[in-house]
């Protein structure tokens, strides 16, 4: 009990715990759609892309950097969606170029001009130090937005994820849903960037969702489990980070990886079988 209570006596840890568990929950929730749509690579690319915006906006408009980086992220997300839709051939390469170039720009700006915000290392691997009330408010707002989006557009999101062509025929505005999902994804990445870190955000989008998939065959339960697992990773990761004295994002991801191994061992072949086809694109109808 002492182990649990002692870190709570520090204000920075209390804030960190709230932020880490909320970050885990948000990424766990939105990650279900990213994994089931075979978009893990896009999540990875988007995190890197947003880092570029993060660095540039700190330089040019430090007081509005969150808004600027958010807009940068949304623009990247919409560009990725357009590239992916218009040209399946070469889309991965195009996304790689766009997002990693943006990341490289961020690195260059950090190296040349430094930053008034988090250090380069903290931006890459996450940190609980220096979390502001503004960041917490922003994170809570994104959490409400993400949960609201998933709840209010539940069936349309599910339908377009499972079978976008039939969804479109059945009255779902698939283009609008996909664009909204990318906007929410980029805001979720931006809001969790400081705690989880650029290089590790993509892992937290994937790990809770994959673990949840191994545990259930129901979509509704997968959403609930993935959110819960993300939250747990955040909580346990924070304590591990405190005691091991390593960056928070690193420990959160390592806890997720350990949970994955535990679930894999306990579910055996059945769990692994369920993860088959997670990167499928069922919307590719057979032309004939």
């Amino acid at each position, binding site marked *: 009990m002492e182990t649990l209570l002692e870190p709570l006596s520090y204000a920075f840890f209390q804030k960190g715990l709230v932020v880490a568990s909320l970050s885990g929950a948000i990424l766990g929730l939105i990650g279900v759609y990213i994994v089931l749509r075979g978009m893990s690579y896009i999540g990875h690319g988007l995190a890197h892309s947003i880092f570029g915006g993060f660095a540039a906006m700190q330089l040019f408009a430090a007081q509005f950097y969150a808004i600027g980086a958010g807009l940068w992220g949304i623009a990247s997300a919409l560009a990725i969606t357009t590239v992916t839709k218009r040209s399946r051939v070469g889309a991965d390469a195009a996304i790689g170029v766009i997002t990693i170039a943006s990341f490289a720009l961020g690195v260059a700006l950090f190296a040349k001009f430094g930053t008034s915000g988090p250090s380069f290392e903290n931006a890459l691997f996450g940190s609980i130090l220096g979390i502001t009330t503004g960041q917490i408010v922003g994170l809570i707002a994104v959490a409400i937005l993400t949960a609201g989006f998933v709840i*209010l557009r539940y*069936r349309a999101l*599910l339908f377009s994820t499972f079978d976008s*062509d039939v969804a479109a025929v059945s*009255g779902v505005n698939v283009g609008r849903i996909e664009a909204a999902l990318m906007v929410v994804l980029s805001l979720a990445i931006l809001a969790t960037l400081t705690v989880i870190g650029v290089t590790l955000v993509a892992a937290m989008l994937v790990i809770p969702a994959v673990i949840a998939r191994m545990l259930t*065959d129901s*979509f509704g339960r997968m959403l609930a489990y993935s959110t819960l697992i993300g939250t747990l990773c955040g909580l346990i990761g924070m304590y591990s980070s405190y005691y091991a004295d390593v960056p928070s994002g690193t420990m959160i991801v390592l806890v997720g990886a350990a949970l994955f191994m535990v679930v894999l061992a306990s579910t055996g072949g059945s769990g692994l*079988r369920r993860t088959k086809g997670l990167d499928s694109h069922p919307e590719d*109808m057979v032309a*004939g």
Partner: protein
Amino acid sequence: MTGTGVGPELIRLTGVNASYDHKLVLEDVSFHVHEDQFTGIVGPSGAGKTTLLRLLLQTLDPVAGTVWRAPDLRVGYVPQLESVNWNFPITVFECVLMSRKSSRMIPMASAAEKASVFEVLDRLGIGDLADRHIRELSGGQQQRMFLARALLRQPQVLLLDEPTSGVDISTRHDILHLLADLHEDGMAIVLTTHDLNGIATHLPHLVCVNRQIVGEGTPRDVLTSAVLERTFGARMEVLEHLGVRLVVDEAPATYTPGSRS
């Protein structure tokens, strides 16, 4: 059951060309769907059958020609089983329910929504499978599940892509009877198939496609050696058995091990 389509027009394609990556798949196709129609689109693999369906569904825009649909037309669509991600985490109930626009602010189905899902599942004989994962169903049950999802929207037109592909003979009969019943209830039905003897010959109206519309009419009109050769590019003989046309290869071959050498 007339099935030839003389009722009010629901969908009309006029002089349509369709292509993928600048490769023309359909050329100068004109096609009508009427209220009382029951049509099979027949052709070999790659002939443009699914493309024709996609034009009717308006999930593909033509590169030339026009597509017209009756205002507020409700269309149900049953995809090819091969195009479905069977590992997607979803139960039969969840799969069917997704086609119904939610009337509530929360994701959970209302009592009325649950009742409507079970009504259509029971009608198709799979009400007891509602909690199963979609992968656990047989081919025929999977087909019924997607039919249930389409029917939940109470469509005026039902479009099906190879609905009997990969199912056994008994299931094929069941599906055909089911579709005939839906047609009797007033639903227009258009399906694609490359199964001439199992499906096409039993339908009231056929359209033979191979990049263009090669023939159109009743099985008696289009299941002829001349039309089939133009459609499939192979010589076929047409026999008559109990009033039904049957198609066989003109020179059936017997393949035995080692015969290739």
